[in-house]
């Protein structure tokens, strides 16, 4: 970072609110606030993780039975897509840090494309699951020993993937907003806190998926 840049960031910029003495302090406060929000999100998803741990302990055979019927291939491809999307967006953040708005725009569009493919595959997966009768209730396809635990697993599955998908949709909206800001030139090298904050949110959604993936598709499988 050049001395001139450091100097600019230590002064109020055009988008600096009145209560901050410098662009840097506003930026750091924004990042800290976002991490506080993500801490609350961690506990929000923590309830889901707790449900899984609790019922998996009580119904290990049923959870293992249900896991065998999940769409492993789609889940794995979706994991690759989300990991890649986090990296493309992080590269976009690095680009705007040196003032390259065009590269940020392109990488944000790539991130959106990866997220959209994830959602489409998730839709296909839900269709296949429902078509296979993996819906707890009168038509539930898994009968006999283990069916009670398997039903609990599928309730967890739909709840967890729906909540994750809602977060991903919000993330897609935010990344689209950043892409538009990059194209319009309203984010700059000196003032780009919004780009970093959206990056934190997007990567958090990725983190949640990385924990959900083994819980849904792998844990309990006999091999």
């Amino acid at each position: 970072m050049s001395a001139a840049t450091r100097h600019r960031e230590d002064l109020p910029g055009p988008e600096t609110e009145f209560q901050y003495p410098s662009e840097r302090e506003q930026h750091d406060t924004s990042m800290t606030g976002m991490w506080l929000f993500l801490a609350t999100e961690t506990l929000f998803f923590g309830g889901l993780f707790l449900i899984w741990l609790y019922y998996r302990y009580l119904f290990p055979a049923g959870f293992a039975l249900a896991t065998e019927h999940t769409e492993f291939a789609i889940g794995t491809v979706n994991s690759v897509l989300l990991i890649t999307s986090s990296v493309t967006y992080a590269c976009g953040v690095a680009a705007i840090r040196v003032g390259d708005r065009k590269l940020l725009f392109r990488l944000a569009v790539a991130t959106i494309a990866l997220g959209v493919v994830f959602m489409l595959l998730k839709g296909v997966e839900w269709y296949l699951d429902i078509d296979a009768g993996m819906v707890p209730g009168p038509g539930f396809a898994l009968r006999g020993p283990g069916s009670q635990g398997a039903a609990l697993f599928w309730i967890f599955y739909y709840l967890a993937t729906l909540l994750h998908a809602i977060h991903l949709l919000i993330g897609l909206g935010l990344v689209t907003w950043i892409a538009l800001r990059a194209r319009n030139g309203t984010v700059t090298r000196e003032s780009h806190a919004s780009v970093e904050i959206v990056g934190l949110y997007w990567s958090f959604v990725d983190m949640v998926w990385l924990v959900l993936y083994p819980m849904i598709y792998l844990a309990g499988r006999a091999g």
Partner: protein
Amino acid sequence: MILTRTRDYLLTWAGLIILLAVEAVGGRWLGWGNVTPFIGIVMAAGVGMVLMHLRHGTGEAKIFAFTGALWLVIMLSLTMMDIVTRSPDPVSQATPGFSLANRGG
């Protein structure tokens, strides 16, 4: 600077994909299913430290991130401590024919 950061991100991507491959192959075909959630947690930590820049973050950001993880661990561990040590357990009492000693399906 951008090249250094991009190199770090690409190395992280490669590391995450390798861990995902280990997780998927081990969990699907080698019977490591019960270990895979721990691999997932390691991968999530990698995303947080590098792609979310926590390692270069402010002290306050690190405190909030650590606190979120700490409360999650407390919630999960205390709840599970209750159910694995309680006797007689509540589910056995509420569910005819169900016993934790011979856990259900």
